[in-house]
């Protein structure tokens, strides 16, 4: 039973990708309630279905704020003033209620523990929390839970107590519980920063798989540019609330201006730079060695 329902739910999700217009920010500025300075200035950003966009920048450059704006929680839940337009598949997010936004664009934070509801005794019920909130029929809730478990790669965790998971597992549970609302877009704010290397690999792998299998458009903030080099199609660089650099991941991450902007380049890029700087000629063998 669950395999069939899960498969059909998954098919419905990826079928959506072809028809969608993307999550588009046009001329977006944002100021927190009671703040004197704007946190975001004139941002143009486009999140396409099935693509992963990495967001980098020095701390306090506006990355977290941008995540909240993209997901519609700013100003929808936390107030503040938004200029410009944020459209999800053609519809302005300013017109949507938080629960409608949740079904269009999911948001994940750094700390998995604060995202668990702490009212459920199994991972299964934790992931069912969102669909149950929507009042969906039980059969559909169950189907979505299995689908989300499978997509996040955590089916064996279904009977476990959410309070007793490792950091990486908890993040994947948080991811699955947002996926269960079947958003067309996902925004993740430093999802791996508290995780060990194994947990980081799990989450990075899950994101790639989600983009590919569900057609979701993903925006991920990361300091670990090595992870972005692996999973991102495009990278956007923020400085003081504005986009200063953007383009294909490989190109942008190799841009020499990144250092001045407070962003560490991926290890392969740094190595190549160091080798070239010492006067050694770059060769195919070297390029292969740092693959």
């Amino acid at each position, binding site marked *: 039973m669950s395999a069939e329902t899960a498969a059909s739910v998954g098919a419905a999700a990826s079928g959506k990708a072809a028809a969608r217009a993307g999550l588009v920010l046009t001329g977006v500025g944002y100021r927190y309630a009671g703040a004197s300075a704007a946190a975001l200035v004139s941002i143009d950003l486009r999140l396409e279905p099935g693509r992963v966009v990495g967001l980098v920048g020095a701390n306090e450059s506006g990355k977290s704020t941008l995540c909240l704006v993209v997901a519609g929680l700013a100003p929808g839940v936390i107030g503040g003033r938004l200029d410009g337009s944020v459209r999800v598949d053609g519809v302005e997010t300013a017109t949507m209620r938080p629960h409608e936004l949740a079904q269009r664009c999911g948001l994940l934070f750094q700390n998995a523990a604060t995202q668990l509801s702490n009212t459920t005794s199994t991972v299964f019920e934790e992931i069912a929390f969102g669909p149950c909130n929507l009042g969906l029929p039980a059969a559909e809730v169950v189907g979505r839970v299995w689908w989300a478990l499978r997509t996040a790669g955590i089916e064996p965790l279904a009977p476990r107590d959410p309070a007793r998971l*490792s950091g990486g597992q908890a993040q994947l549970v948080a991811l699955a519980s947002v996926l269960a609302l079947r958003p067309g877009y996902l925004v993740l704010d430093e999802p791996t920063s508290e995780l060990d290397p194994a947990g980081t690999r799990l989450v990075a792998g899950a994101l790639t798989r989600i983009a590919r299998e569900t057609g979701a458009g993903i925006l991920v903030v990361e300091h670990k540019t090595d992870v972005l080099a692996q999973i991102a199609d495009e990278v956007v660089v923020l400085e003081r609330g504005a986009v200063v650099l953007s383009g294909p991941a490989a190109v942008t991450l190799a841009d020499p201006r990144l250092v001045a902007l407070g962003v560490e380049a991926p290890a392969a890029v740094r190595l190549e730079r160091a080798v070239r700087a010492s006067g050694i000629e770059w060769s195919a063998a070297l390029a292969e060695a*740092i693959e």
Partner: protein
Amino acid sequence: MTAPGSTVAGSARAGSTAAGSTPSIELDTVSFAYPDGTRALSEVALRIEPGESVAIVGQNGSGKSTLVRHLNGLLRPTTGRVLLDGRDVRPIHVARLAGLVGLAFQNPDRQLFAGRVSAEVAFGPRNLGVRGPALEERVRVALEEVGLAAEASTNPYDLGYSRRKLLALASVLAMRTPVLVLDEPTTGQDARGVALVRDVVARAAGDGRTVIAISHDMRFVAESFRRVVVMREGRVVLDGPPEAVFGEAAWPELRAAYLEPPLPAIAGARLGLGATPTEAALVAALVAALVAGN
């Protein structure tokens, strides 16, 4: 080494951080099990000489945090002993060991309570008996080290998470302990923050202090520490300089501990250049190979 006749606890209040008063640390077959029976450490035998800079790596749950909490007495071994300068620290209270071993926690929000950054940083040294101009000096220097000098009057919760972490680090630095233990100092930091932490470690090591850090950042580990201890399931499985621990012979053991060597080590091995755990080492090896080839 401490002067003859003085106690380990006595030197805790002395406050000097010259190499002469940095203690050696030894874990003598330490095992630890939590009250619910979980074994967190299994017969760990480790000796750290004064002034060493050691990185402890391993998966979450491998025992790293448990181990460092034994160094300042927060946890006491179930079996085995923890020795500072050869003396068992079991009878010494945590508050007194705090003057010898400073521990910066991973989550800064577990310690922040003051209304101002400067008051927060002053808490530690004040507990150690430092007052007046000496205290102000320590606070000022510590804040400068982490780049927060301009925020001395700010409320800690008005700072972003990464700067709160730097604040927590400053609070421990101001205590000027001969041994400095850092739990995940670079997580959540941007490039500038990581550079600050790197400088803090280098400066402390340069002052002759023992620096011990838990980290998941293999590049930071390879570049800033002279010794790497790899833990898995409560045991030490690898222990040596980065060249050895990230060298090809150790890769199976590393992978069994769910870790990957840093890219320069992998590249160096692929090119047959020997052990090159850092960018600098790889470049040097390449240059040497070219020169030899000519």
